[in-house]
């Protein structure tokens, strides 16, 4: 990553803040106070920081998961569905085995099942790509839609919890509390898993032959074949890992934060980490270590936006608009070459 991109990202984030200021003005809020609240509410207050770190966990994991096939220019848009299936599998095994296994073993089992669930859900589009050449962007996206409704069905059907029967809010039964991921000062220990995953995938991509072959495929398929890469194996493995890791994010979310399987969480765009993970990974130039920063940053912006909502009574839709603007502009910052545009228009 060269110096140009970070500068551009900062430039565009400032631009997004300027536009947000306008929106705040329209809503009769002082932009300076609003942005100060955004920053302190997301990053500086104790409550805000804890929430930001907890949101960073699934966002980081899913973004890192997406990076793996993205390196090979295999566009896995299906992180959301894989994330959902990981959480379904993890919850199911958690409810089945809770009490019969000691906590640590149960959590291990849940991680494994979450991985399997996510990886399985990633397979149909991958195999269709490998054997029939179908466009993965479409197929992975479709798999998300199916996953969302399947989750709905599970929580009003086979996995419906007793509370849901009363409240009519679809959800599963809660995982018994001794079997959950512990918290330290409010922060889920899932953060350690998330950081470990980012570091492991960074090493995998940089130091292994598999990572190298993904880069070759991303650069030129013909060059990759010439270099002896096994395209099918690499693609398959990248999607098994991608889906599996996205699935683990689902497990950590259920076992660390929500404690029940709650479809609502997966249909709200701000918590649809499978989608939000895409810009987060792109802003980080598909580097898993930089993704730690970008995931943390955008989680902070989200929580700062919530803080603005509470402090100034700004409508939730407006603060989420601001969150979306920040992300949109940051992505523009990595995708274009500002220097070139300036030189062009300057010459006129």
């Amino acid at each position, binding site marked *: 990553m060269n110096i140009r991109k970070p500068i551009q990202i900062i430039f565009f984030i400032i631009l997004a803040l300027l536009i947000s200021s306008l929106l705040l003005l329209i809503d009769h809020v002082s932009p300076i106070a609003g942005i100060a609240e955004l920053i302190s509410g997301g990053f500086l207050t104790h409550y805000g920081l804890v929430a930001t770190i907890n949101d960073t966990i699934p966002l980081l994991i899913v973004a890192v998961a997406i990076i793996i096939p993205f390196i090979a220019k295999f566009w896995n848009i299906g992180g959301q569905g894989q994330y959902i299936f990981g959480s379904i599998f993890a919850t199911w095994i958690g409810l089945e085995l809770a009490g019969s296994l000691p906590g640590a073993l149960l959590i291990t089992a849940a991680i494994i099942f979450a991985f399997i669930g996510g990886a399985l859900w990633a397979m149909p589009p991958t195999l269709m790509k490998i054997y029939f050449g179908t466009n993965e962007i479409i197929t992975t996206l479709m798999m998300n839609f199916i996953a969302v409704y399947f989750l709905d069905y599970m929580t009003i059907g086979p996995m419906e919890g007793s509370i849901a029967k009363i409240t009519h809010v679809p959800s599963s039964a809660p995982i018994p509390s001794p079997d959950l991921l512990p918290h330290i000062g409010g922060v889920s220990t899932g953060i350690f898993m998330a950081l470990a995953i980012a570091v492991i995938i960074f090493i995998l991509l940089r130091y292994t*032959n598999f990572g190298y072959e993904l880069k070759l495929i991303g650069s*030129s398929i013909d060059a990759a074949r010439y*270099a*002896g890469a096994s395209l099918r194996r690499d693609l398959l493995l990248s999607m098994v890992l991608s889906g599996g890791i996205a699935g683990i994010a689902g497990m950590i979310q259920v076992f660390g934060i929500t404690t029940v399987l709650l479809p609502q969480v997966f249909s709200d765009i701000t918590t649809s980490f499978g989608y939000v993970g895409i810009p987060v990974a792109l802003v980080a130039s598909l580097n898993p270590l930089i993704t730690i920063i970008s995931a943390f940053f955008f989680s902070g912006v989200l929580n700062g936006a919530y803080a603005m909502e509470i402090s100034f009574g700004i409508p939730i839709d407006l603060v989420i608009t601001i969150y979306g603007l920040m992300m949109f502009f940051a992505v523009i910052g990595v995708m274009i070459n500002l220097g070139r545009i300036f030189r062009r228009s300057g010459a006129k």
Partner: protein
Amino acid sequence: MMKGIVKRFPGVLAVDHVDFELYPKEIHALLGENGAGKTTLMNVLYGVYRADEGQILINGKQVRIRNAVDAQSNGIGMVHQHFSLIPVFTVKENLSIGLRDGGFRLNLNQIKLKIEEAEEKYGIEIDIDKKVQQLSVGEQQRVEILKLLFRGASTLILDEPTSSLTPQEVVNLFKSLRALQSEGKTIVIITHKLYEALDIADRVTVLRKGKVVFKAIKEGLTPQALTEAMIGRSVELSNYKMEKVSSRNSLIVEGLSVMGDRNEEMVIGASLEVHAGEILGIAGVSGNGQKELIESIFGLRASKGGRILINGHDITKYGVKGRIKAGLGYIPEERKTRGAAISLSLSLNSVMHDHWGQPYLTRGAFNYKAIRKFAREIISSFKVAAKDESVPARDLSGGNLQKFIVGREMMRNSSFLMSVNPTSGLDVGATEYVRNEIVSYRNKGGGVLLVSEDLDELLALSDRIVVMYRGKTSKPVERKDFDKLKIGAMMLGEGFNS
């Protein structure tokens, strides 16, 4: 004309205060060593790059060319070395892109008329209903030229247009260029082949290290004078010393049949044998199955029948990796799409055929120190002009990238090397160097399968030559029996019973 043009890339001064004039209706050859700045200079004229300094004047009036659209509206068109046609579209559809005729879409019939007109005027023949991916390189080039003409270009820039053409196609191209000239077009042609420059050009400009070092009209010019201008010395064409090597290792192809892209049999029962310590040349007009043969030997293309053996070991069922491990190396013709992954660094490109084992992969982890060292060795031994091994391969000039690929394949361990047009796009000095390296690879006991469109190159380097015609291979011709006319006749089918 271009005045005082300067173009810098990070760490490289690619074009250094160049004045370049172009007169109407002339054919102008732009020459120079690899990395001299020819492509960059023309890219400035075509608006791909913006000059850091200097101006462009047309008929005495200063113009701004910021992109290809600007260039086109000034009547300037360029055919890059790598074409920009859409492979799955037909010729007609490709030609209609970007063309507008009052309304939104151009009537495809009108295009047909225009093409027929062009055919008549310039002798550019083309089947417009074919898909581009089915065309030969020469045909694709014709489509590119037509595209520019349709967009109203009066000045055509051709970047190394002949480097992947057959001699016959070169003749045709030059005929068309002369016809275009007499229709009033101005043409710039970049080339490394001096006799071509002397054949077609009215004037030449030579660049060296980004500066103009020589300008002249054609009259009275000799290849020697041009070579000296280009590299500052004259190049002795060496007499290659072929030493006798005794080894019983061999690469054997037996009755190989291979299907082509158009689903027709392109290689039909081909057989040949490359011994260790020899160079086996494959002569033939391109499109007679050489490409498919080589790809199939390397495992990039499935074979329909026949066997391939290395040192008696059957590798027909192996994948690419297995064949590389069995001792095969390959310098492909497609340097930017196959021979290198151009978005990756030279370091990563240096281990394309060794990324699975020692010393680059130690205990499952890439050893970047060893990888960078190897890349640096290639860069220094083959005099690749590159800032360092961390630059992406796409930053190299065409010839320098070729030198890097050749260097990689020569310097790694292999016992047989397949090489397709290894010196295409190289300057005179680099060509000599690469040829000498091929010979020394042979003298050290390696076997070389050399495919080249340049018959002189084959005659100079090969121990034996096999001719390919319509997918079939001839019996090998021994070096003592080399006869240019006879082999030329075989390339046209003599001695092949169809």
